């Protein structure tokens, strides 16, 4: 019997954040496979490979060198192959402009990076266990930002 994994990808240029992210999933008792990429270019190179395993949830940092989160978001939304990927924006900023812009461009949820490891674990656990089909159908601007 093949074990069912939830595929998760994080694109973030910050080493510490990637560490927190993987540590959090290590401690969570969820069957996940976590892949991390250092920037948008690396992420898109991976996704554009035909044999690539597409993630269930993609966590996108906004401020990245070479190709930022918004550009990645646009590219992903243009390609029908990526239709099933749930996109979570994962950023330090919680400015209205960023929230508005990513919502309009089709992201599924906006997460402000928590400043506490326990909270981080809770957020990540919540996000990966969301029933995305159900969640996305009732998506609006008010529940776009994940409130804790």
């Amino acid at each position, binding site marked *: 019997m093949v074990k069912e994994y939830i595929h998760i990808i994080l694109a973030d240029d910050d080493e510490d954040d990637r560490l927190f992210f993987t540590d959090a999933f290590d401690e969570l008792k969820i069957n996940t496979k976590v892949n991390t990429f250092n920037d948008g270019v690396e992420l898109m190179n991976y996704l554009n490979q035909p044999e690539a395993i597409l993630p269930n949830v993609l966590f996108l940092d906004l401020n990245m060198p070479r190709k930022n989160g918004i550009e990645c978001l646009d590219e992903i939304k243009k390609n029908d192959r990526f239709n099933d990927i749930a996109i979570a924006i994962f950023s330090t*900023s919680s400015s209205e402009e960023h929230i508005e812009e990513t919502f309009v461009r089709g992201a599924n949820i906006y997460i402000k990076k928590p400043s*506490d490891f326990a909270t981080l674990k809770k957020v990540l656990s919540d996000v990966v266990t969301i029933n995305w089909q159900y969640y996305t159908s009732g998506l609006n601007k008010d529940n776009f930002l994940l409130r804790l």
Partner: protein
Amino acid sequence: MKLNAFYKSPIFLKSVFVVSIFAIFFISAVTFKHINLLNKSATWVNHSYDVNLELERLFSYLKDSETGQRGFLITKDSTFLEPYIQAKEKIDRSFSIVKNYTKNDPAQENNLRKLQLYINKRQNYLSLTLHLSLKKGLNDKELKEKLLVGKYTMDSVRSQINTMILLEKETLKSRELSYNDTIKVTPIFIYITLLITLVLISVSYIRINRDLEKLQVSNNRLTVLNESSNLAEIVGNFGSWQLNIDTDQYTFSDNIYRLLGCEPQSFKNGQDDFLKYVHAEDRTYFEGINSKRLEKENLPSFTYRIIRKDKQLRYFRTTGRIVTNRSGQNILIGTTSDVTDEVLASLSLEQQNIELEASNKELVAFNYVASHDLQEPLRKIQTFISRLSDKEYDSLSDSGKEYITRIHSSVDRMRILIDDLLQYSRANKTEKVFEKVSLDTLLENAKFDLAQSIEEKGAMIQSEALPKMTVIPFQIQQLFINLIGNSLKYSKEKVTPKIKISCKKVTALEEDLIPKNTKDKFYKITFEDNGIGFEQEYAEKIFILFNRLHNKNEYAGTGIGLAICKKIVENHKGYIFAEGKPNEGSKFTIYLSEDC
């Protein structure tokens, strides 16, 4: 009324002048005629006397010839015949004179013809008697008969002459009568005419005098006006000029020269000489504006640079307007003012604006730094600390545990500070998007935002219905969050916090707190709590940035929250006031303009 108008009209003087000229002509004509008449009548008197004298003379000649004849008849002395013969000649001469005199008088001519007949008859008898007596000597009877006939003839002559003299006298009399009539009426006529003329001339003299006085008064007024306009030009730093469109002639006021740093009227009035003072770079522009102006079109206001006589750079502004005067001439009246101060002020204002814009941009950049770059390391410190206290806590010494706790609270405080600062600068942001929203919704959002601490404190929030208003939604929401949060934070221990929110529509006049001259209608929203309150003397101080009434160990806070409230209310052109009573509670009152 009509007469009065005529008296005042300029036609009056002309009419008086014409009437007077006619009167003078009339008087001189009458006088001339009168003198002529006088002359003529004198001639006629002379003439009548001449006629009568000659008739008398004629008669006396006749008598002479008769006397001579009688003398001869008596004495037969031929010496007596001499006067007779002489008299005959004289009679003829005298008769022809009389005939000449009476040439134009038919009645006298008629009489004269009769007289001639009688004279001839008389002479014939004389010569006949003489002849008879010379030839055959007349007897006494015959002589007597002849003499008698002669006497009768002589009587006829005498009576005829008398008739003629009488007629002449009568004619003279009738002429004198008609002359007298004329002479009697004429002076009265002349006097009346003269009198009327005199009256008319006097009236027009009064009128001219009055006009002259009026002219003097308006002349004086004009002088004063001129002087005051000169003064106004000096004080107001402007000069005036005129351009006669038809003759292309310029007239400059004295102050134009003073503005250029020249002596008044020191150069020719005209564009060419003025142009010498216009900044070389602005000359084409200056000439372009002036030449582009079409006939009968006003000159638009335009600004250019001037290099004064003393080489000072000044800014001038010129404008002009077409005016048609009473003589139908088109005149462009213009003013030129020295606007250097104004231009320099606006230039420096522009500069300040640019600087302000730049500093605003810097502020926005700082916002980003604060929101993102500063938060990131802080967040990591927090996360690492949370990792440390989760995983390594047990292996730390007691003092290590204490340090961890202290670091934790310091970092927390720093986070709050950064968040609050961020909010404050967001409240300052220049872009303000106003939307019509229900304040109730915003209040609900605010309560939702504070749900955790409301729950913790078990607070009761009571609110009246709030209106729909045009506001910056996230700012008003922030205002509500800060005010409710403030009440929650400064609530009394062991007492259920109660917050009462009420709303009322008021006018500026009813409220003592807000200026009376502001817009009429406001929504007055009050937040009243039963917290620890504050001394009324701090009511204004609490809105100042970083101002705190309590030690941070007693109540956490940054002193930014209420400053943000004030900023937000000011962004909406409203007012915020605080009232407090220690240990009883505080009350915040917001006035938001209804049509904000």
